[in-house]
Every structure is written in C-alpha cells, then in structure tokens.
C-alpha cells in the first residue's frame, strides 16, 4: 500500500487529468457543437475496440496507472455528474456531447486496464465475481457506445392491404425524407381489443367526476350497476358496432325521491359526436373513450435477400427478420380500433448479441454479489 500522502497526491493528479479531459470536451463542444457518432460507424468502432486492449498490452508501463481504482471512482463520479445534468436540465443533449464521449472513452480504457491487470493474477474462486461484473460491463459498454454507431431506427407506416418498404428515420425531431429499406412489410390486418368504456357522473362545466375527492368510474357492461352519491345507475343496453362509437342506455334513479331519468350515453368517436345524459342543471352521466387493451398487426415481412416471414406483431412482441426487429409502434389514434394503418418501428442493431452477452454476464455477476456479500 502506498503511503497516505502519496495516495492523496495520486488521487489529486488523476482528478486534475479527468477535469482536463472534461474541459477539453467542453472546448470541442463549443467548437464543433456536438459529437457526431457516425464517425464511429463500422469499421471504426471495431478498430477502437481492438486498439484499446492491444495498446494497453503493448504499453505495460501505462497499464498500471490506467487501471487505478481511484481513477475508476473519479471517472464514475464524473459520469454520474453528467447524468445529473441530463436528469435535471430539460431538453439537453448531454448524451451526444463531447465531454460525455471523452469520459465514456476514458472509462472504457480504465475498465479494460483493470480487467487486464486482474487477468494476470486470475484465480477462479476469488476473481469470478469481479470478472463477470467487469467484463460483462465492458462488453455492454463497447456495444452500447461505439457499437451504437451502426444502429439504425426507422418508422414505417403501412396501410391495411398494402405493401410498404419506404420508411422515415426515427429519433430525429424534424420529419426526415423517406428512404427505401432492404425490408418490406405487407399489412394484412390491424386489430385492437379494448377495455370497456367507463361511465361516471360529471360536473358539466369542469368535467370533474363524482364523488368529488374519490371519483368513481365503472365499466359500461350490460346490466352493470353502481351507486354514486345519492343516485343508482343501471346499464340496460350496450351497443358497439364496427365503425361506430360505443353507446350505453343508462337508467339513473334518485335514491330518495325515486325519480328516474334514462337515455343513451356515448363517448363519440372521429365522426360521431359524444352524448351525455343530463341529470340536472349541474351534473350529467358521461362515458370515457375505451382504452386499448391490446393491438396487433397481422403481417408478412420480406427481405431483399428473399426471406419471408408471416406473423403477428404486437407491443412487447416484435418480429425478428434478417437482423432487423419490427415493433408495433402505434396506429391512427383518432380512429382507434377502426384505424386503417399501423405504424411500425424497425430497428437494426448488429451489436445486440454482444450487448446481451454482457448483460447476462452482469446478471450472473449480480448473483455473485448475493453470496459474496461485503466479504472480500
């Protein structure tokens, strides 16, 4: 162990170097206006990923200094501070800034160096936890950082019964030009299941539902029955035809006076006006629009190389074809279940396999933390 004064001196030097890197990043940021990750596209990212360990092995003298544990702490703290900025300042672009990129790179070097140092004295039982956590993280950081330059994301809107192969780049703020992709989608059918619409008694002007502090909504199912304050509501009939808005025939009875009011209530849709049932000058019965329970697209997808795949794409269940993943993104929300088109997000990420390997190593690494505990 180095002496106390020496250690503090070493930490001070490392802190100054990291601060200098950050300042250099800020200067580059001012001059160039941001880091363009496209310069890391294949093969640049692969060269970088190979160069870091090779150079560290060649320059053994630097290895020990770059593997420093106190340097790791300083670098992680710096990344955390940049993340704080990301988390506090609305609409910032810190993740594609020069300071973040340079610190990320420094962290990759520090992490690679630490792994190389530890590999030289590797003992399975003692070091397996370290290796799973650190190599896993390293692979993940390489895939998520430099690897992400090869990632591509597009939005493709496909109409029912049509085939589409043109898409717009996603993620960008302004509308991009449509490009032709090596992949085409034919949408056979778009379908949606919905939760039943809900009924409530609302104040006509404010829309606030009764009871005031704990608003009560109930599903507009046939024969549904509810008591809200001093009124009972019964649903005598529900109609929901394709292309039309849902409507319920509601009977409202005042508990004390036994006076009854009845009539149709509907939330309306893109071409039908909504309809409420008036109770008195202040309150009426209203219906909420049905919320989507599940939506799915029945598709056939083709790649340029001649692959064909049939299947259903829904949220949380993308389709994988030829290195691409196709996601159910959205639909014509004004029309809801009557939407005649479906919007897909297409993602190409050739680095996803190493990213998964890194993540799985880290999950096993996390498990080793349970039995290892704080004992070192």
């Amino acid at each position, binding site marked *: 162990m180095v002496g106390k004064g020496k250690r503090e001196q070493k930490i001070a030097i490392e802190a100054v170097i990291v601060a200098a890197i950050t300042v250099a990043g800020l200067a580059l940021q001012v001059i160039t206006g941001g880091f363009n990750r496209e310069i890391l596209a294949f093969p640049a990212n692969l060269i970088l990923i190979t160069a870091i360990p090779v150079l560290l092995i060649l320059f053994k003298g630097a290895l020990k200094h770059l593997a420093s544990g106190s340097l790791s702490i300083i670098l992680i703290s710096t990344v*955390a501070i940049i993340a704080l900025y990301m988390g506090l300042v609305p609409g910032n672009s810190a993740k594609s800034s020069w300071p973040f990129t340079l610190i990320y790179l420094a962290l990759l070097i520090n992490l690679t160096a630490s792994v190389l140092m530890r590999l030289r004295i590797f003992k399975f039982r003692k070091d397996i936890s370290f290796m799973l956590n650190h190599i896993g993280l390293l692979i993940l950081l390489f895939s998520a950082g430099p690897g992400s330059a090869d990632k591509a994301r597009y939005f493709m809107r496909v109409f029912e019964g049509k085939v589409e192969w043109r898409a717009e780049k996603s993620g960008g703020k302004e509308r991009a030009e449509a490009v032709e992709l090596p992949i085409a989608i034919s949408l056979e059918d778009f379908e949606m299941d919905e939760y039943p619409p809900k009924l409530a008694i609302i104040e006509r002007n404010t829309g606030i539902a009764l009871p005031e502090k704990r608003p009560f909504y109930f599903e507009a199912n046939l024969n549904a029955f509810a008591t809200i304050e001093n009124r009972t509501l019964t649903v005598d009939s529900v109609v929901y035809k394709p292309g039309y808005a849902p409507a319920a025939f509601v009977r409202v009875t005042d508990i004390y006076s036994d006076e009854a009011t009845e009539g149709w209530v509907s939330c309306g849709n893109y071409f039908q006006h909504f309809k409420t049932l008036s109770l008195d000058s202040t309150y009426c019965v209203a219906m909420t629009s049905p919320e989507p329970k*599940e939506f799915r697209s029945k598709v056939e997808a083709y790649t340029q190389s001649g692959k064909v795949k049939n299947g259903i794409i829904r949220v949380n269940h993308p389709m994988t074809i030829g290195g691409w993943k196709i996601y159910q993104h959205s639909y014509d929300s004004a029309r809801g279940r009557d939407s005649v088109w479906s919007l897909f997000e297409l993602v190409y990420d050739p680095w996803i396999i190493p990213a998964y390997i890194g993540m799985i190593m880290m999950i096993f690494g996390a498990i080793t933390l349970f039995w*290892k505990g704080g004992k070192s």
Partner: protein
Amino acid sequence: MWDNFIWFSLACMLLWIIGVASLYLNKKTAITGNILISAGLALFLAFILLLWRDIGHPPLRTMGETRLWYSFFITLVGFGTWLRWRYKWLVGYSVLVSGVFIAVNLLKPEIHFTNLMPALQSIWFVPHVTVYILSYAMFGAATIASFIAIRELKSKSERLMPLIDNLTYIGLGFLMTGMLLGAIWAKEAWGDYWTWDPKEVWAFITAAVYVIYIHARVQKYPLRVILWILPLAFVMLMITWLGVNYLPAAQGSIHVY
C-alpha cells in the same frame, strides 16, 4: 379492496410492533416475536395478493402500489437480517419505515383505477419492479445502519460495517438485476435496451453512487467520507423512485404512469 387497507395495515403494524417489543422484552426466547412478525408479514402479503386478484393485474403500476410492496419488503429485509445476523434494532427501524410508507398510502393513495396498458403486459413487468423494490428495501436498511455508524464514528467502532457492506452488496445485486431485466424488456418493448429515459438517467445515477461506495470501500477510503455516500445514494434512489415524475426534465418519460 383498497378500502380495507386501513384494517389490514393496522393489524400488521400491531403484530409487528408487539413482535419487536417482545424481541426486546423477552430475553429468553425469540419465538413469540418471530411468530408475531411472520404473521404480520403473511397478513400483509395476503392483502397484496387479494388486491392483485381484485384488480386483475399485478399491483405494481401506480406509486401507491409500489409503496405497498416497499412496506412489505422493508420489514421482510429487517426481519431477514435479524434472523441472519441478529440485529434487533434493524427490525424495529424497518417496521418504523414500513409504517411511514403505510401512512403515506393511507393519506395520499395515488391509486387510480386504470387499466393495464399494452406496454406493461409483459412477463418482465413483475420481476423488473419487484426486484427493484427489494433492492430499495435493502438500501433503506443500509441507510439506517449508515446513520448509526456515522454517530459511532468517534468511538472508532466498526461493528456495523460488515452489515452495511452486506446490505449494500445485496442491494446492488438486486438493483443491477432490476436494471438489466428492464434493459432486456426495453429491447422487446421499445426497440432499444437503453435510451437515457429520465427514469433510466436517475436509476443510473443511483447505481453509480452505490458502485462508488463499493469501490471506495475496496480502496479503503476513510469511513468518515465513505459513510456519507450511502445517505447521498439513498436520496438519488428516492428521486428515481418518487421524484422523477415531478422533474421538468422528465416530462414525456416512458416511465410516468
């Protein structure tokens, strides 16, 4: 079901408080205390399961629902560490913290009876959230212990450090698992495993601060510095969990429900 929460929680708190008291008062045997605390835990779990059946999907969506799990897990963790390492006071503190979260749920439920949207209908939903809340419970216990250790700094006693380290390592294990399960889920649901969504940013900060604690311990930095990292990390954790929704930078997050 929520209307019954007050009765369930009162019964649980009563069982837990009498259980902890009996651990302190009855020096000869811990059986009575252990049985009472276990009964309280079983009752609390029963409430969660009944609520689950009642609303028809896992109660993990709203803030109030996650606090419900926290109240359960923090007591479970406190009780577990008592069984494993014999720290009586930690059970007492975790019951107190649990009580605070129960009280918050009674006063400000933040439960909206909404339907489960398609994005949350996934096999990753339950493990992602429960593992996270379990880690929060571990870190809650570690934070309590760190405050006591800070008070004991003058006496040079390091008796709590093994406990704090254990809780932090296990907590970080769960936190990383929760984050990675979330990443795998995100790839299936949103197309990317990491997008610096506001909740992800704060989860990252939280994990980073705990990682700093562990590295600082390995480097044998002085305790008077290290011990303050844990309360700081816990503040970050609270922002991640409860605060993000209120931050201006978080509007439009996929994690705001």
